[in-house]
């Protein structure tokens, strides 16, 4: 399967081609070239998936993982070396499919959405760069390769968020996204360093094959009461949490919506943000040897899920709502991983559920974002208050959006139902408390999604006197329809057969008690949303007024951003950087200047001796001579 290397090289070539030629290409040509490249790439990915999953299973019933390509890129020591390679196992192949599909859809969609934008070619170049990096990330053979592509996706995300580089908000958002994730990456890097120091390898295959090695190697080494192994893994998770926008590192994601909407769909909904989940899944056997870290992961995920869901309920910018919903949904996946275990298939249900949700979520969240893009394209605003009653004007968008909302709310038979149900079951198995917690979050999800849906498509009958919204062009609706179809059928894919914690096929069976509960909760939430938002009325405002404090707090995202702002500006900039700069200029440099000044002062003082007046010289010369003469005479006497 050596051809898989072209899945990476093709987008890279596209990036170089489009990036270097830039404005020398016609926008249209650039767009089509990029899309074609991605199409080939997607075809290759599908073929890979087909080939991979149809392989004969080995004796344990596991699909053997394949490393079709591995190149030693940089050697550090005897054991440590960064390889660039391709590692195919169920989850990476699944990710290949997800990424290429969504990316292809976004490529096609952008042909219409970004039409006429300045820097169209650049946009496609960045998209290709991102696709390349993301694909490289998921097929990484070793943790350092992952880190490399991890950084690359970070940069592509930075470039794409800041695509409208004249808009201050976009610049700030891109900067924020990069720096927050960079901070998380610091944890990732330190985690890698610690892990590799003890296990003497970066290689995933080796790491996961002997996951207990880290425990034996680090035996006795503790730091602040926890074993070094836990620290390493927790730090690596920190990297994942940063990319996946887990609380409290989530602050960059809502702001990242300043980027073009298709970018949000690709990067900040479907692919890049699930990198954290993927990272934990990739190292899952290793995580399993440190249960305390898994508990940490569960807790972080659960808090994030609830937090994001609450905030999503009161946001007014549709992309922000979707962003918080993304955070919340990723938190679902994280929680599912946290409650899983690799002892057997049943214990490891969370792992499978998490991956399944990742898959379905990527499709319907991309759909939601692309739909939102179509709406924004039509209304020229992100604010809900500008919208309403759009169902008449944009039928295709309406239907596909509804499908996606139903999917995310967990209504059968849409894909979200199946995956979310597995997650709830897994959580319920582990702990009832978290199970109820997550069910509540699922309910909230249904509520805020339908709040969004009703608010956009129903609410009022828009007069649209000055501007009539119209359905998007074909290039934009086609991806919507495609993704909607996928959303409808994805739930029936026998996902557990392909992906499971130890690779053996797992037959998904619905736990009807959990499923029924969640459906009931979802339906109630939807009804509540319908009651509040179906027709234009004063109820929502009244409710908001009734819970003013909570509402404002949630609207301001519980002031987390303000706290960050305080820390960065007041503490880091004013409290550390500025004093250091002052110290440097005045104390350190001052000391150096002082040496110079003292020297100068002394010379100025003794300069009088070198007056330049020949008479003083003569006088001094004479007196000196006389002194010497006198001394000589006295001595001779």
């Amino acid at each position: 399967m050596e051809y898989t290397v072209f899945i990476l090289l093709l987008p890279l070539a596209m990036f170089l081609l489009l990036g270097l030629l830039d404005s020398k290409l016609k926008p249209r040509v650039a767009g089509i070239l990029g899309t074609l490249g991605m199409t080939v790439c997607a075809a290759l990915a599908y073929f890979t998936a087909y080939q991979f999953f149809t392989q004969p299973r080995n004796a344990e019933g596991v699909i053997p993982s394949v490393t079709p390509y591995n190149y030693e890129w940089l050697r550090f020591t005897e054991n440590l070396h960064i390889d660039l390679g391709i590692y195919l196992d169920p989850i990476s192949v699944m990710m290949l499919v997800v990424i290429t599909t969504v990316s292809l859809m976004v490529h096609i969609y952008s042909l219409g959405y970004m039409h006429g934008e300045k820097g169209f070619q650049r946009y496609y170049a960045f998209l290709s760069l991102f696709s390349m990096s993301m694909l490289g990330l998921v097929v990484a053979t070793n943790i350092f390769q992952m880190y490399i592509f991890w950084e690359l996706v970070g940069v592509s995300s930075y470039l794409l968020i800041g695509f409208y580089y004249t808009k201050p908000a976009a610049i700030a958002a891109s900067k924020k996204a990069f720096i927050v994730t960079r901070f998380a990456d610091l944890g990732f890097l330190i985690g890698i360093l610690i892990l590799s120091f003890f296990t003497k390898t970066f290689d995933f295959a080796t790491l996961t094959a002997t996951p207990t090695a880290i425990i034996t190697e680090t035996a006795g080494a503790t730091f602040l009461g926890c074993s070094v192994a836990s620290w390493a893994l927790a730090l690596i998770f920190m990297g994942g949490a940063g990319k996946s926008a887990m609380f409290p590192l989530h602050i960059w994601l809502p702001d990242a919506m300043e980027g073009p909407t298709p970018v949000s769909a690709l990067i900040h909904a479907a692919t890049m943000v699930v990198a954290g989940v993927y990272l934990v899944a990739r190292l899952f056997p290793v995580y399993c040897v440190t249960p305390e870290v898994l508990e940490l992961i569960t807790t972080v995920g659960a808090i994030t899920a609830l937090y994001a869901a609450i905030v999503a309920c009161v946001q007014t910018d549709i992309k922000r709502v979707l962003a918080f919903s993304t955070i919340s949904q990723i938190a679902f996946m994280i929680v599912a991983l946290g409650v899983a275990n690799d002892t057997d298939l049943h214990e490891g249900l969370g792992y499978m559920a998490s991956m399944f949700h990742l898959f379905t979520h990527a499709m319907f969240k991309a759909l939601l974002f692309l739909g939102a893009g179509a709406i924004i394209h039509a209304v020229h605003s992100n604010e809900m208050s500008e919208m309403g009653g759009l169902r008449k004007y944009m039928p295709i968008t309406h239907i596909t959006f509804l499908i996606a909302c139903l999917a995310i709310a967990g209504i059968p038979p849409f894909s979200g139902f199946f995956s979310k149900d597995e997650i709830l079951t897994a959580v319920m198995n582990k702990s009832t408390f978290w199970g109820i917690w997550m069910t509540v979050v699922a309910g909230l999800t249904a509520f805020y999604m339908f709040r969004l849906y009703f608010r956009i498509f129903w609410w009022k009958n828009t007069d649209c006197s000055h501007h009539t919204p119209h359905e998007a062009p074909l290039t934009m609706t086609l991806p919507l329809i495609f993704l909607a179809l996928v959303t409808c059928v994805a739930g029936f894919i026998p996902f557990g057969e392909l992906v499971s914690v130890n690779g053996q096929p797992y037959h998904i069976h619905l736990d009807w008690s959990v499923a029924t509960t969640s459906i009931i909760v979802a339906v109630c939430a939807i009804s509540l949303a319908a009651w509040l938002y179906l027709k234009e009325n004063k109820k929502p405002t009244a409710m908001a007024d009734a819970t003013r404090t909570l509402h404002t707090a949630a609207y301001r995202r519980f002031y987390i951003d303000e706290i960050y702002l305080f820390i960065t500006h007041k503490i880091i900039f004013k409290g550390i950087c500025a004093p250091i700069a002052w110290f440097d200029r005045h104390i350190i440099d001052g000391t150096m200047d002082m040496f110079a000044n003292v020297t100068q002062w002394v010379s100025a003082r003794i300069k009088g001796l070198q007056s330049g007046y020949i008479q003083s010289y003569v006088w001094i010369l004479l007196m000196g001579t006389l002194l010497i003469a006198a001394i000589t005479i006295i001595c001779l006497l």
Partner: protein
Amino acid sequence: MEIPMIYYIVLSLVMFFAGVYGFITRKNMLMMLISLELMLNAVDINFAVFNRFLFPGQMEGMVFAIFAIAIAAAETAIAIAIIINIFRHIRDIEVDKLDDMKY
């Protein structure tokens, strides 16, 4: 030759230190030059006197006195040329005004 050698030397001594005094106190460059001539002259006397009294058969002292006079003449010529040149530039020949090239 009734006059003892020491008389001559004391004479030149007085002349020399008169020159020193003049050189140190006067600001006018020409005056300094005059003082300088006094000192040179005192030295010439010493040459001649030592030659005469201590080594009467030889003439080193005299020869060197002649050389000294020649060099003094040369030096004076140059010095005066310089002084006049300076005078042309700054209309003055006081030494303490000559500080353009200082520092």
